[in-house]
């Protein structure tokens, strides 16, 4: 069985329906540690997210997000330190400015803005991280798969 077939079978067993794919960009000091804490505390959340570690959300080039949507992700989560708590002082402030602009841009591209979610999660907020993943999976299930995927794959 191919890997996508395993995924489909598993989601059928779950009651069927679309399983959104989420890529999370998490910063090393706050949100990545918060996600680790969720694990340490054995908080359970949906499997749909795959996390990529960066040192700071300020590192996130909007092209990473754009490429992710182009390649078929259904949602992107960017999680960083709370305003005022950035390990590098103001990296998260740069991130929010870039990502807010990016949200407007993806709307123009025909992507629902709920697909790009920016959150602040501190190193002690394991529960919060789990909640964010749960709510994002629910929201994406409602709006369905990335509308670009068909367009892009048909051009391949």
């Amino acid at each position, binding site marked *: 069985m191919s*890997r996508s077939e*395993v*995924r489909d079978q*598993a989601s059928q067993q779950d009651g069927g329906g679309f399983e959104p*794919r989420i*890529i999370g960009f998490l910063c*090393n*000091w*706050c949100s*990545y*540690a918060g*996600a*680790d*804490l*969720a*694990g*340490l505390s*054995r*908080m*359970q*959340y949906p*499997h749909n997210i*795959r*996390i*990529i*570690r*960066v*040192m*700071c959300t*300020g*590192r*996130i*080039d909007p*092209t*990473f997000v754009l*490429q*992710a949507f182009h*390649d*078929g*992700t259904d949602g992107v989560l960017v999680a960083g*330190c709370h305003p*005022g*708590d950035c*390990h*590098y*002082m*103001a*990296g998260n402030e*740069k991130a929010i400015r*870039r990502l807010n602009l990016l949200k407007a841009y993806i709307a123009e591209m025909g992507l629902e803005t709920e697909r790009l979610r920016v959150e602040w999660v*501190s*190193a*002690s*907020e394991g529960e919060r991280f*789990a909640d964010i993943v749960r709510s994002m999976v629910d929201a994406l299930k409602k709006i369905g798969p990335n509308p670009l995927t068909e367009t892009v794959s048909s051009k391949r």
Partner: protein
Amino acid sequence: MNEVAASSEAVPRVGVYVCHCGKNIADTVDVKKVSEFASSLPNVVIARDYVHVCDEVGQDTISRDIKEQKLNRVVVAACSPKVHEVTFRRTLAKSGLNPYLLEVGNIREQCSWVHIDNKDLATEKAKDLVIMAVSKALLLRPLEAKEIETTKSTLVIGGGIAGVQAALDLADSGIKVHLVERASNIGGRMAQWGKVFPTMDCAACILMPKLVNVVQHPNITLYTHSEVKDFSGSLGNFKVKIVRKPKYVDEEKCTGCGTCAQKCPVKVPNEFDFGLGQRKAIYIPSPNAIPQKYTIDTDHCLYFTKGVCKVCQKFCTSGAINYEQQPQTVDIQVGTVVVATGYDPFDPSGILEYGFGKYDNVITGPMVERMADAMGPTGGKIIRLSDKKPPKKVAFLQCVGSRDEKLRLAYCSRVCCMYALKDAMMLKEEDPSIEATIFYIDIRAFGKGYEEFYVRGQERGVKFVRGKVSSIVEEPDTKRLRLRYEDTLLGRTIVEAFDLVVLSVGQLPRKEDQELGKLLGLPRGIEGFFMEAHPKLRPNDTVVDGIYLAGSAQYPKDITDAVAQASGAASRAAISLQVGKVQIEPVAPTVDENYCGGCGICVGTCTFNALKFDKQGEKRVVRVDESLCKGCGSCVAACPLSAIKAPQFTDQQIAAQVKALLRPETLRR
């Protein structure tokens, strides 16, 4: 060093190690399937699964494979990189491979532990995380950590028992210490207590020698009435700006005779006594304060508020009063920092049911301490505030401001059971006929000698009632307090009158720590105390290399634990200083001057002023100052020409992880 294999021209040969972590990963993720999947990936030469990759056998296996399989990239799929990235980097280094040719995939904290009921999906996720890690590993480049010399000096912030202990340990080992204290005198909370548990030692008697030692120590520079105003740099070389706020008293000339305070006409409630006693506008907080130097409180001094008086200057025989004294800024360079800023006792005025602040005879544990101090505001006598008479019946209420979800102070402050017991014992020692009752939820007598102290208290006749007091009402004529409580062991609700009620208040983080945390880059936990790097293995470290924690600033604790932790923090802080040098992580980006157009967008993004304009011939370019760069990568994201290249977490590596996940078919040899 296997230079050829690690060079960018050599074909990547990846070894993948999938850890079971005992049952932590293997119970949920099918590690064998993940390992098989890994071996199917391009450039993966060998893939293994093992029960604890971090143990000796695991590490030796990696070492052997590096040599025998000529590996030049290693992927470990295991616990969070925040746990063992350092461990595996060492393994690579010992095996002759550049330690930065390692990538760790997090299949425990972010996979097996959070998808326990979804074994198939967790296994699929683990495979995804492995393919992402491998794709990043293919693009890793060897990096060199730079070695820099450390400044053999430490900054200790906070002059309480923890800060003092750390300072003395460091100074005794030959390290120069800069000890900064916000208050005019050192000693912190311990200087405010009368006796300490369980020995019933006089707090001042055991503290004073240490404080005198600090003042006299040739290796300690003491800054009182001072604050840390600016902070930058990194382990081995922190640059600190200390501001000495003016006391308006020349410390060289002041003899501590106290004539100025005697003559000063302004009386102010003394914060050191929690408002019980009074001090003057020119003051020392207590008669045995160290250093014995006076300070002018400009908020109340008549000269500073109204331009009149100047009586202190008139009567000072040493000419020590100087109304023109200016704040003094001192710039220092240190190798490490110890943060020992202590705590504030909880203010129970917000708990309306208890009547603190409304009823004279409802006081707090710290106020009892000030009364018990022989040099304190009541001459060592514990008295009722309404009529200044000693009480015959005293109630102690535990867990005020602790273990309280409603107040969002869910944690236990550790010391209150013991200090209430101590205060009850002090009352009994003074007058065995005094009735002392402790209203508790649990009695926590966890330390050495504490349980025996608790038993002694019971034998001396201290009463214990298991139950919380729900309300306190004052009898208007006698000012006695009527406590309504449930005795849960008897299963009855009782109303009983007491002469004096003592609220055993917990320890709270200091409000000023919020600012200090931002200045130093230290995160705080959900309770507000500074976060340790790891609660079990690194309780004295912070996530910032070179900054350590001691005392209640990290979490409520008693003097014994504060001293133990302070010595631990001092030992940690001394390591890199005694070695004399330290490795600096290669995090600073490089500017490719062929691409840099000198636009300066990056210069504006850098909070640390690490990017500076320079000239390359006629062209304006930007250069990175590695000593200031923290490696956040904001500039890398900002550069419109991608001229700034990150050494780790490169654009290509991040893009590769995204592609490997979403379009795995594109992962080619």
